[in-house]
Every structure is written in C-alpha cells, then in structure tokens.
C-alpha cells in the first residue's frame, strides 16, 4: 500500500483529503505545518507522495519542498502543492523548488485521485 503524506494547517483539509485518499486505498500520514512535516521526514517517514499546502505557520510549502529535496531519500519523491495560490510566478517558484505539480484549492475528489494516480504509476 502506497503512503501519502498530507501537510496542511487546516484540520478540515487534513480530515477530508485523508478520507478521500484512504477510500482510494492509500495509507495517509499527516502534519499540520511545514516544520513538523520536515521533522517527520527526517524521523524516518518514507512517503511515496507528499501533498503540501503553501501558506502555513513556520515553513511555507515551497520552503518545505526545498528542504525536503535536500534529503537524499526524497530527491525524486513526487511532491504536489495544493494551495489557494494560483499565480504563475508562485507556480514557477514551486517548480524551481522541486514541486512535481500545482493544484489550486478546491480540487474535486476524483480530479485529485486522477493526479495522484498519474504521479504514482501502478496505483
């Protein structure tokens, strides 16, 4: 079973997306901010995919991606940004940091699952 790591400061986002992903057969781990997320990754969590919000207390999503890419086990792990931010400049910043894709909230459940299956072949 593939593991997806959700990072968002919104309780409702974590709860609702966890349910959607669990229903699709994924194991889900969560963190409510970038700092905690990075600590979990350094602590041994090995997700197959990370989905992170941008605006969070502590590390932002893009900062989290930069720090994550510095960790050898996660150099090529797919990371999706899921945020209300939609500007092209911010997307490019995310891409440069190492994001695999950019999703603007809200994303329909079936669309999210389609993207997840695209970046996680074989699921």
């Amino acid at each position, binding site marked *: 079973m593939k593991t997806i790591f959700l990072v*968002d400061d919104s*309780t*409702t986002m974590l*709860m609702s997306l966890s*349910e959607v992903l669990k229903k699709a057969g994924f194991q889900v781990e969560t963190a409510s901010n970038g700092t905690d997320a990075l600590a979990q990754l350094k602590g041994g969590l090995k997700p197959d995919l990370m989905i992170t919000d941008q*605006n969070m207390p502590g590390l932002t999503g893009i900062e989290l991606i930069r720090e994550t890419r510095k960790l050898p086990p996660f150099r090529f792990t797919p990371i999706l940004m899921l945020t*209300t931010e*939609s500007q092209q400049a911010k*997307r490019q910043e995310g891409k440069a940091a190492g994001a695999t894709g950019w999703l603007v*909230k809200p994303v329909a459940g079936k669309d999210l699952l389609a993207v997840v299956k695209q970046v996680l072949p074989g699921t």
Partner: protein
Amino acid sequence: MDAESQAAARVLWNKLKARFTQPFHAAAEALHSRFHRQAPTLETAPLLDAGSGCQAVIEHAQKITQSFDGSLRLVIQETEQSAVDIITQVRGLDQTATHLIDYLTKADQETLDLQTQIEQSTEIIGHISQFLQNLPVKIETERQASTELIDRINAIMKLGEMADTISTISRQTNMVAINAAIQAAHAGKHGKGFAVVADEVRRLAGQSGETAGHIIHAVENIHSTVRAYLDDRMHRDFSQDMQEATHVIESVHKLQASYEDMKQYYKTLMTVVKEYNMNMASAIVETLGNIQYQDVVRQRLERVLAAQTRYCEVLQTALDDPARASSPDLGQDLAQVLTDYLEEDSRHGQGMGDDGDDDAPPKIELF
C-alpha cells in the same frame, strides 16, 4: 471633516462592508473595480480634519472594524466546526457503505458457492431425471423378463400334458390288464399266476393315472396362481412407476427453473445494489472534496481580517497623532491597505467562481 473626505471615508467603509455581506467571489470583483475607480481620490485627498468630531469618528470606525473582526473569526470557527461535523458524518456514512460493500462481497462469494452447489445439485438431479426418463424402458425390459418367466411357466404346463399322457397310458394299461385277467381266467389253473400279475399291473396303472391327475391339477394351480400374480404386479407396478416418474420429472424441471430464476434474481439484485453503492461512494468522495471550500473561505476571511487589522492600525496613528488626521498621508496609508489586500487576494484562486475564467491558470498543472 469636509464633504469630499466624508464621501471618501464612506466609500472605503462601504467597500469593506461589502466584503462581509456579499458572496465572496462577487465581492472580490466589485471591490476590485471600485478600488480602481476610487483610488486616485483616496490617494490625494486628506481624509479627516483635525476638527472636534474627528477623533470620535476614528474611534467609532475602529470599534466597528473590531466588531467585524470578532464576527469573522466566529464565522471561521463555526464553519470549521461544521466542516468537521460534516466530515465525521460522511465518514460514518462511508463506514456504513463500506460495511455494505463488505456484506455484498461476502454475499457475492456465498452466492457463488451456492451457485456451485446448485449447479452440482442440478447435475445430480439431471442424472436422476435421465434415470427416470429411462425408467419406462427398464420397466419394459422387466416386463419382457416377466414374459419369459410366464413362458417358463408355460413350459412347466407341458408337465401337465406329460401327466395326461401318463394318465392315458395308465388307462390303456388298465384295459390291457383287464383283458389279460380275462384271458388268464380262460386258461384255468395254468393262467392263475398270470392273473395275479395282471391284477398287479391293473392296480399300478390305476395308481399311475391317479398320480398323473394330481400332477395335472397341481400344475394348473401353479400356472393360474403365478400368472395372476404377475399380471397384477406388472399392471400395478408399471402404472405406478410411470406416474411417479412423471411427477418427479416435472418437479425436477420446476426445480431447475426455480434455481435459474433465483440465480438470475440474485445476480440482478447484486448488480443494482453494487451500482447504487458505487454511486454513493463517488458522492462521498465529491462531498469530502467540497469540504475544501471551508479552507478556501477561511483563508479569504483571514486575508480580510489581516486587512482590517492594518486598517485599524492606520486609524490608530491618526488618534495618536491628531496632525495626521488632516494629512494626505492618512488617506494614502488607508489606500495602501486596500491595494495590498486586493493584490494579496488576487494571488489566490477564487474558489467556486474561477472555473469559467478562460484566462486563469489551470487549476491542475503537472510540471
């Protein structure tokens, strides 16, 4: 406060008020267009005089803004709680759906097992049916065997004929013995011994005839008894067996039809229920996806709150330094609050209202 300043303050206030009372996506567009129309006035005109009512107006504006802050924070809390409640309820619904799926999967497996059993039973019943269908042939074979038996009985009857012959021979021997006795009497004393033999022969002939008669009678009795028994049994067994065979064959056919109907009904039922369940699962996923709107709204309200906080801070500078109230700087600072807010807001998607915007970047982009 002059009329122009009052109008400018009213416009600014109305803009912020509109943000709280109109739907978010419509408010953003309206506010944006109003800002561009009014911005030059705000940037150049002094907002307030240093007159006597100035301080009261600023304090009043701050109180209203703070009151709105409280309401907005409450809205965020309540919508978040509602969203959590919805998720919890949907999760319960999903668990029920999952249980139903589990049950159906189990039932499906049991149906498959049942189907296998039915197929096996049907096969066995088919064999029985085949056997019963062949039963008349077997009965006919048995009937033929019985006929052979009767033929053998008839052969026994030949014993009767043989007994008849013995009886005839016995009668003729008796006649010969009588004649011999007469001739012996004519011979006198020389025929005395011969007369004794003739008597003995006649006596034996009588016994033979009598025995032959007993045999004929016994054979006839056996023949009639066996014949009557066989006829009765064959008639009774054959018709009864045929009747039972017909009933059983009919029952087997009915049973097979019932099995097929039941199998088809179960299959249809499972298909329908599974389809409904899949639709429900899909609706659950969409409902959970829609919960994201709460986060989108929360973030928009938090941007409004941040703008209001800055707005109050700017007003506070006018209270702290009355000279600023009559300065163009105050108006410029307030205009900057609005500009910053709108810029910040424009960096974010408009949630429910941005699907139809052709110029907007795609909502999903893979690099």
